[in-house]
């Protein structure tokens, strides 16, 4: 089977690599030539446009930066819709807006093909290992036709509802994760300031009702070992948070936690310097609290 991957960055390239390992013929397109050259070295056949991908492939996976890029690669000049064949399945994995997904889904269905939204979570290591969590929206029959491919990429494939439901749940999950990250960062900062060790704080929280994914996975694995490496910047987190906020806004909801969280990430993305724009708990803590310590120390 021919599978096309549009968007061969951090995540898309890893998806392509796993599909190659499972003997699929993989074609790729990226507007960045360097990204395309890199996947070509893995064995991906590079093509010149999304339209060309659509004309070669029975299944197309899109993994681009945001809803605008999704719309451009599907419906823009030389987009997927201009080369699409009947019965093709488009698997949209970008963190995007449900309203965009519904709009492009309508256009794709009118051409006799179908689309499912299938944004992923758990990050780069899970993409490498094929253990992503995949939140799917769309027709159950199309999900079943796509399942064998999705199983190459992830272990938890959850059907969330109709088209756009996967993107909705992903946006809310990102918002909840970001809120829990800020909460845990502040609690840990306060605990450490009172003389408690990070190990003690995490052990106690994880035994009790304050436990969340950050206290049980992220902090022990990355913060405790000081080994956090991510290209996921504060700015990208802010962008993802804005998807949840835009979605809520479209439904006339005024968020409390989500809005405050987004505001803090906006401040972080413009204020934190010297971190190579990488999201780091230490950077958040430094911005929130350690500056105070530094000033007191300097004054003494």
């Amino acid at each position, binding site marked *: 089977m021919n599978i096309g991957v549009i968007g061969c960055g951090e995540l898309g390239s890893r998806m392509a690599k796993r599909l190659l390992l499972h003997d699929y013929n993989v074609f790729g397109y990226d507007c960045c030539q360097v990204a395309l050259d890199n996947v070509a070295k893995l064995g991906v056949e590079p093509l010149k446009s999304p339209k060309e991908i659509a004309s070669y492939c029975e299944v197309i996976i899109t993994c681009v930066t945001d809803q605008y890029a999704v719309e451009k690669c599907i419906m823009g000049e030389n987009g997927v819709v201009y080369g699409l064949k009947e019965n093709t399945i488009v698997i949209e994995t970008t963190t995007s807006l449900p309203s965009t997904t519904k709009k492009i889904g309508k256009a794709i269905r009118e051409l006799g093909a179908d689309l499912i939204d299938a944004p992923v979570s758990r990050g780069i290591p899970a993409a490498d290992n094929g253990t992503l969590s995949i939140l799917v929206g769309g027709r159950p029959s199309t999900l079943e036709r796509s399942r064998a491919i999705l199983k190459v990429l992830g272990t938890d494939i959850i059907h969330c509802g109709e088209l756009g439901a996967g993107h909705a749940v992903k946006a809310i*999950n990102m918002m909840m994760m970001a809120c829990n990250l800020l*909460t*845990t960062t502040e609690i840990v900062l*306060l605990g450490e300031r*009172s003389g*408690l060790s990070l190990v003690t704080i995490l052990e106690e929280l994880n035994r009790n*009702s304050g436990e*969340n*994914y950050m206290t049980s996975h992220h902090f022990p694995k990355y913060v405790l070992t000081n080994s956090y490496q991510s290209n996921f910047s504060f700015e990208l987190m802010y962008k993802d948070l804005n998807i949840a906020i835009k979605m809520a806004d479209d*439904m006339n909801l005024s968020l409390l936690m989500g809005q405050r969280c987004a505001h803090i990430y906006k401040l972080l993305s413009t204020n934190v310097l010297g971190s190579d724009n990488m999201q780091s708990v230490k950077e958040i803590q430094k911005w929130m609290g350690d500056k105070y310590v530094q000033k007191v120390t300097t004054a003494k």
Partner: protein
Amino acid sequence: MYRKLQQLNEGAISDETETLKSLNALLYATNLLTAYEGLAIAKKAGIKPDVFIDAINASSGQSYITKTLLSCDKQKTKYGMDSTISSIYTSFSSTVEIARLEAVPLMFTSLTQEIFAMAINQGLSADSNECMSDFIEETIGV
């Protein structure tokens, strides 16, 4: 830290356990509001609550709240928090006060205190923490 607050309040000198208990309470309360806000958006978007909770529990937004309180699989923990809005508010208030005394900025979690205070002022003091779900839905406009 907690000792300092106790001393300031001329009360009994407490220990590490009390500090951890109070930190846990603020984390719990904030996770609770985050989970309820997430659930409120999902419901408004037409996603079935049980499907939403299953998806979150397989993803990075999960917490004790999504795994127990929202999935009806309640467990009693050492610092179990199945209690009233006012008792939770009291439990985490010492942490917020200590942060103020120590000049530790709680840029995010300070919102938790404000929201719980709003709920108490609207007469929900003696209500169960689960009533915060309705309060959040009403406040954000579901």
